[in-house]
């Protein structure tokens, strides 16, 4: 167990400062301690709080991007590497007008039998397309983003996948709002 994770596990609850993540609604209470107990030396630290931003415009006028850890990609793309013990530090762009028949799931770490029958279970692309047609959403970015959630190097992951997706969302896709879909 690293010193960082020891600090999280061993810290007396009575004297610990309130954790802003647990004071709000971002994650269920106790999650940090659970992860650090089960995976000693793991990736969760107390300095990773990400403040939420308020909506700048109504959804009916906003352009939405979907970002998911489900590992969905176009059937024509090279699959992400599910065998690498540290995870794949790449991602795939998925056109937001793609049909389910154009997509496939490449994953090792979660069951996707149901998602193979209906991709919307982990990547609700048709639901979002419907919401645009119905006027509930202003539009979709040209591309969505997908990567493999299993990853053992969060710092490198942040420098590569997270940074590159965030930059693409801001400079290429011009999204107003992001839907993050864990899998």
């Amino acid at each position: 167990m690293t010193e960082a994770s020891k600090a999280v596990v061993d810290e007396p609850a009575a004297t610990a400062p309130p954790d802003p993540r647990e004071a709000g609604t971002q994650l269920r209470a106790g999650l940090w301690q659970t992860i650090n107990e089960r995976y000693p030396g793991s990736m969760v630290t107390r300095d990773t709080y990400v403040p939420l931003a308020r909506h700048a415009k109504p959804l009916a006028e906003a352009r939405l991007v979907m970002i998911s850890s489900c590992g969905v990609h176009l059937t024509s793309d090279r699959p992400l590497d599910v065998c690498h013990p540290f995870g794949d530090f790449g991602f795939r762009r998925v056109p937001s007008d793609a049909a389910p028949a154009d997509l496939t799931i490449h994953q090792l770490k979660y069951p996707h039998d149901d998602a193979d029958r209906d991709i919307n279970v982990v990547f609700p692309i048709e639901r979002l397309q419907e919401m645009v047609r119905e006027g509930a959403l202003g539009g979709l970015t040209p591309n969505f983003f997908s990567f493999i959630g299993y990853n053992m190097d969060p710092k490198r992951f942040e420098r590569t996948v997270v940074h590159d997706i965030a930059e693409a969302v801001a400079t290429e896709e011009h999204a107003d709002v992001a839907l993050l879909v864990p899998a």
Partner: protein
Amino acid sequence: MSVGYLKEAAAAGETEKLLRFVRLHVGDGNEAVGTRELEKSWIEAIRILLREEPVDRDLIDSVMAKDEATLALLYFHLHFYLVRRSGEWIHDGSQ
């Protein structure tokens, strides 16, 4: 177990931590299952070779000339290839 944790273990020569990580990885979080999975891939490799079919030595020679990082990752790919071939697939994902 983060990569940082594993690098610390490797630097300290704590190979059991590295092996535990491999067992957890190939065993989907269960160390005992991972041990069985590692054995299963070797068993499958022997079973295939016992058929005494022709092999492409030229391909092997060219692959072995690659860099060690590529070969190390290939080792993991071959593990999953062999356990898939064994017909006993324990992982949640089906690909």
